[in-house]
């Protein structure tokens, strides 16, 4: 692919670690504010202590921290991490089609995975990052985040997406409270993924598309290449053809959206030049 527009690698710049920290803290802060509304989010009332928040009418008085009240003369409730929120799983598609870009789709997928892991460990939980090529990494503490970054940087968009690779992670999925499926969903159907949305498990499906897939550029002609099947197609990107493509893409995405909605899962389609913070903030702080 020496003369093909292709971006198979993942590279994090020097500021990425700071971005992760800032993102994790901001998500947690937003959750804390939302906890005031009494809505369950990342933390719950039982189990390991997570943090305090001001008491609001309607709170269970059993959660009041009387010692703190005695010292500060203000009422705070103890917020504990929910056991079911401790294990998150991020599945990343690393097939060759994820090299489409720029930026490469795998790049944003890796950033999303890193962001999820950062939020998970910031909330005293743990995250498991699983690549479609079978490699995986488990992190439980913030200090392990550099390992996640290194792991993600080692991923390369190559090979063919095995449609049934997700169920193979059944044991890892068993105790996962949240599952993030990140890929371009190329060659997949909703049925392949939505079987993961079982019980109270939260499932997010993130379709990442290259900008040129989202909005074909205004160029006369282009040779599209499927890096997995090596098929090519020479296309004249005239407005009519582009409109037909966009309509077909929209239809496919709508199918995913409806299927996900039926299973209580979240579906998001984003271009690969999006900021992972925006995407994750929107789905994690709801």
């Amino acid at each position, binding site marked *: 692919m020496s003369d093909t527009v292709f971006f198979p690698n993942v590279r994090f710049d020097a500021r990425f670690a700071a971005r992760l920290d800032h993102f994790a803290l901001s998500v947690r802060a937003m959750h804390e504010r939302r906890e005031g509304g009494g809505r369950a989010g990342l933390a719950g009332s039982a189990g390991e202590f997570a943090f305090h928040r001001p008491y609001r009418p309607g709170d269970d008085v059993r959660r009041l921290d009387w010692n703190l009240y005695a010292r500060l003369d203000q009422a705070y409730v103890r917020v504990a991490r929910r056991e079911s929120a401790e294990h998150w799983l991020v599945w990343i598609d690393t097939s060759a089609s994820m090299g489409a870009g720029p930026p490469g789709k795998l790049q944003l997928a890796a950033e999303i995975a890193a962001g999820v892991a950062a939020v998970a460990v910031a909330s005293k939980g743990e995250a498991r990052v699983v690549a479609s090529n079978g490699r995986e990494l488990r992190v439980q503490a913030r200090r392990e985040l550099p390992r996640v970054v290194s792991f993600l940087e080692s991923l390369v968009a190559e090979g063919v997406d095995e449609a049934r690779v997700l169920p193979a992670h059944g044991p890892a999925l068993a105790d996962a409270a949240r599952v993030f499926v990140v890929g371009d969903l190329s060659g997949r159907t909703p049925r392949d993924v939505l079987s993961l949305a079982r019980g109270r498990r939260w499932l997010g499906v993130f379709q990442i598309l290259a900008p040129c897939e989202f909005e074909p550029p205004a*160029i006369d002609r282009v040779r599209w290449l499927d890096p997995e099947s090596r098929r090519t197609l020479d296309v004249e990107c005239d407005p009519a053809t582009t409109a037909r493509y966009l309509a077909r*893409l929209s239809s496919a995405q709508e199918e995913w959206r409806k299927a996900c909605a039926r299973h209580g899962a979240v579906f998001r389609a984003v271009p690969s030049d999006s900021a992972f913070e925006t995407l994750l903030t929107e789905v994690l702080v709801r």
Partner: protein
Amino acid sequence: MSALALVFLGIEWARPLGLVALLLPAIVLWLARARPLWPTVAIGTLALWEEVAPPISRSGARPRGPVDLALVLLAIALAFGAIALAGPRPAHAASALTWRIVVDRSPTMYRANAAGELPIATAARAAERWLAENVSRADRVLWQAPGGSRDERSEGLSMPSDWLRAPHIPRSPPRFAEEDRAGTLWITRAPLAVSPRTAGVCAAAIQPSHGPIAVVGTTRFDWNGERILEIAGGARPARVIATSELPAPIDAFVATWAEARSLAYERGASSEDGALLTLRRAPDGPERTIDTGRDGWRAQGVVRGSARVSDDDGDLETWLDQGGVPIVTHAPGRIEIAWSDMQRPSGDPAAFAVSWAALLDSALLPHPAVVPPAERMARAAERFEPPRAPPDSEARTAAVDAGPKIAAWLSLAALALALAAWRAKSRQSSPFAASSSAN
């Protein structure tokens, strides 16, 4: 000016090999045409495109598009750079200058020194060295040897090799005072009778040389470095010959004049070797009777044809004519007479004698072995002074000076075009920016 400079397309190229770099833009354009203009882009939604877009071609042939603006700009930039590299400058820089080399072919230039070297050879070598180092290939180098009955000329960086041999008829030195011009180089020997002001000079060294300084009859006078020795019978009498029968009044006077000059006069001689003067009849032609004269004398007679004004040794000067028809012509060493018969001249007899004696004296060659005493005793070091450049060299210098400026402007234009090409390329590649195959 570099000898490698070349005039091409009306422009002088200081480094013509740089023009080879013009192949670069051609290669770039050719490569651009050879590779497809369409980008090949990896996507994961090919299946959707296959559903909605009719394929243009599924063959393996790569589509080719027109050459894009960035490449054209780049090619022009490379062309400008190549032209700048070749060092263009106004063609005036290559306009030919004319250098004149005035060569003294008088006998003194052919007298070998103690080392056996001829002054003309020594001076010519010095001149040739200077010419090789300082004169452009485009320049014209004109060698001239005035002083004979006919000016000899030649062109080239070297003096004609046959000029190293003494001319058959001894020549007088050039009138150097009339040759004192810029772009002129004298080839002579030291010491100089006239010092050049704008001309250059290559003057061979000269050293005192022993030998004859005069011959009178059969008596030779030699200078031995200290004094003059009289050697009776040391020389054969110099010869004056008439190769054909001369009119009686002329023949009688020549005999008288030769006797007075201690010369041997031979009538009907078959060989001109060693003769200091040859008198001959003009080739036969229409016969007519004339009455002509000069210097106070007149004579009636019959002429056949006319005296020639040039022969193998050069031009002859008309001394006497009748109605524009040369009757007597002369040059050093020879006199040609059209008269086949001449009556006794009228007027003062002395006028005829003085008139003809002056003619014979002027045509008489010096004795070949005789060198004037002043020349025998002269000693002078060699001298070399380069000539000033010919007048139009200023324009040429200005043209040469303009070369770097032209190259600088061309380079600047090439840089600007390259930047424009880069910008154009950047804009073109924006749909798939971040460079192809980048990571």
